[in-house]
């Protein structure tokens, strides 16, 4: 660990990254706090944002040291987890079956292709009116977003498998269920994980919108609430919180992917 830190510090790359970020913050501060520019001064400046974020008595009632903050995070994270898990299980399942069985594909693909272009957020009004409770509607909309992305990528994954692996498996005496387990699933895994990362991204996006529109607790709602109560520092804090959470979840998926696909590491020359 210490070694890694040392190599990181010696790497010029590290300093460039820091410089870039610092420059950005300086520019931000200049535009919003120091210079008297027409529209920019309406925006919160980084210093006040950081002060608010780290304060013990935040004006908005939300900072790293308040319970509210973590409650908001919890609401959003739980919703995303439920929706994402459902989308993954159903999406990968459907995608695999569609890729595996041509007849099933021909029956289901047209419907999928009609429903897929409909932006997940356009489902919100319908979902709110039809489903029991706003909470379910928000989770549903988040689910839909991830679901289609997962199905599509899983399908592509199955099709990406070189035909020779199927032939070899058949020669070796595999029955269809063997082929499914030993060729289709592992072969599609790389694409599936790409799809899951995309799914996670769109899930967060839909969730935030859903929270704003439906007015339940959570990060999205807090952003909008902050805006309507003129607590712009809160808005920016939560934006960055969302960014961090999004990054962590994608990184988490990538880590799981690397674990499951150990053979890919050798291909990359690890």
């Amino acid at each position, binding site marked *: 660990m210490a070694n890694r830190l040392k190599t990181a510090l010696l790497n010029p790359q590290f300093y460039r990254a820091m410089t870039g970020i610092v420059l950005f913050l300086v520019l931000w501060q200049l535009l919003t706090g120091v210079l008297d520019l027409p529209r920019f001064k309406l925006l919160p400046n980084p210093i006040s944002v950081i002060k608010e974020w780290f304060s013990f008595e935040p004006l908005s009632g939300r900072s790293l040291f308040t319970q509210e903050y973590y409650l908001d995070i919890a609401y959003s994270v739980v919703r995303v987890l439920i929706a994402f898990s459902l989308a993954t299980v159903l999406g990968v399942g459907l995608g695999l079956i569609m890729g595996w069985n041509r007849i099933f594909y021909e029956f289901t693909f047209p419907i999928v292709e009609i429903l897929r272009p409909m932006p997940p957020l356009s489902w919100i009004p319908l979902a709110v009116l039809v489903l029991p409770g706003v909470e379910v509607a928000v989770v549903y909309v988040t689910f839909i977003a991830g679901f289609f992305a997962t199905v599509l990528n899983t399908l592509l994954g199955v099709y990406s498998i*070189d035909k*020779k*692996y199927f*032939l*070899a*498996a*058949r*020669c*070796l*005496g*595999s*029955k269809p269920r*063997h082929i499914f387990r*030993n*060729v289709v699933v*592992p*072969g599609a*895994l790389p694409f599936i994980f790409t799809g899951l990362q995309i799914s996670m991204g769109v899930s967060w996006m839909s969730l935030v919108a859903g929270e704003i529109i439906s007015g339940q607790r959570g990060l999205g709602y807090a952003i909008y609430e902050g805006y309507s109560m003129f607590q712009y520092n809160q808005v920016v804090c939560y934006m960055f919180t969302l960014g961090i959470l999004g990054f962590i979840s994608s990184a988490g998926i990538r880590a799981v992917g690397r674990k499951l*696909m*150990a*053979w890919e590491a*050798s*291909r990359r020359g690890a």
Partner: protein
Amino acid sequence: MAKGKTPQGAISIKNVTKIYDPEGVHVVAMQDCSFDIAAREFAIIVGPSGCGKTTLLNAIAGFDGITSGEIFLDGELISSHQKQIKPNVDRMVVFQSGALFPWKTVMENVIYGPIVQGTMKKTEALARGRQMLNQVGLAGIEDKYPEELSSGIQRRVEILRALINEPRVVMLDEPFRGLDAVAKTVMHEFLVGVYCTSPRTMFFITHDLDEAIFLGDKVVIMTTRPARVKKIVTVDMPWPREHHIKTSKLYLDLKGEVLEAVHEEAKKAFQAGERELA
């Protein structure tokens, strides 16, 4: 499969014709091709590209059908216009571009066949796999993934994966293509070794004429499209084949014979190709 005699792996190809896309582009890949391969014979198939060598392999393996004619394995009809036996362990294929499952380790690949068919328990299969790897000097790579290993090793593992199933026929589609000359000599030694240990019918497609004569009992030279048997050259040299035979008179004579026949067909193929493009 009828169990009269002990299955030996004798292949009989009778008047096989294959037309691709009969109602469309109508490509006659093969016309009236006939020849036999005796049980446990090492047969080499050479010929210009696109002349239907892979067509035959596909038909025997069960991947694809034929338009007319018949193919027999030990007297049993395995392929005709109506009938097409599905691929199974009797007729193993080793693919040109390598079909080791990249997501399985070497050992998992090798024991895949017996495990999936249920002919061996896991411990038994592992032991057998280990034994086979050791026999050919490939011990210690069991837990590696194919991509971590050189192509030479990958090809050998793939051949072992096929052999562990004790097939009647092993079909190899240019398995050593792309390997450098040094690696090839290692491969040939390897193949000669496993063939002599337990002989079984080999159906070996190649473009390398040295390889063909070195490894084969007979060399079947195919014509260009529509493919037919042009000539069969018998290689009457003792087993196990050793490298010094490559400079013997018999070898060079045979090579000359094969070379001439192949060259003739290659010229025809080029001219046909040029005509197509013109």
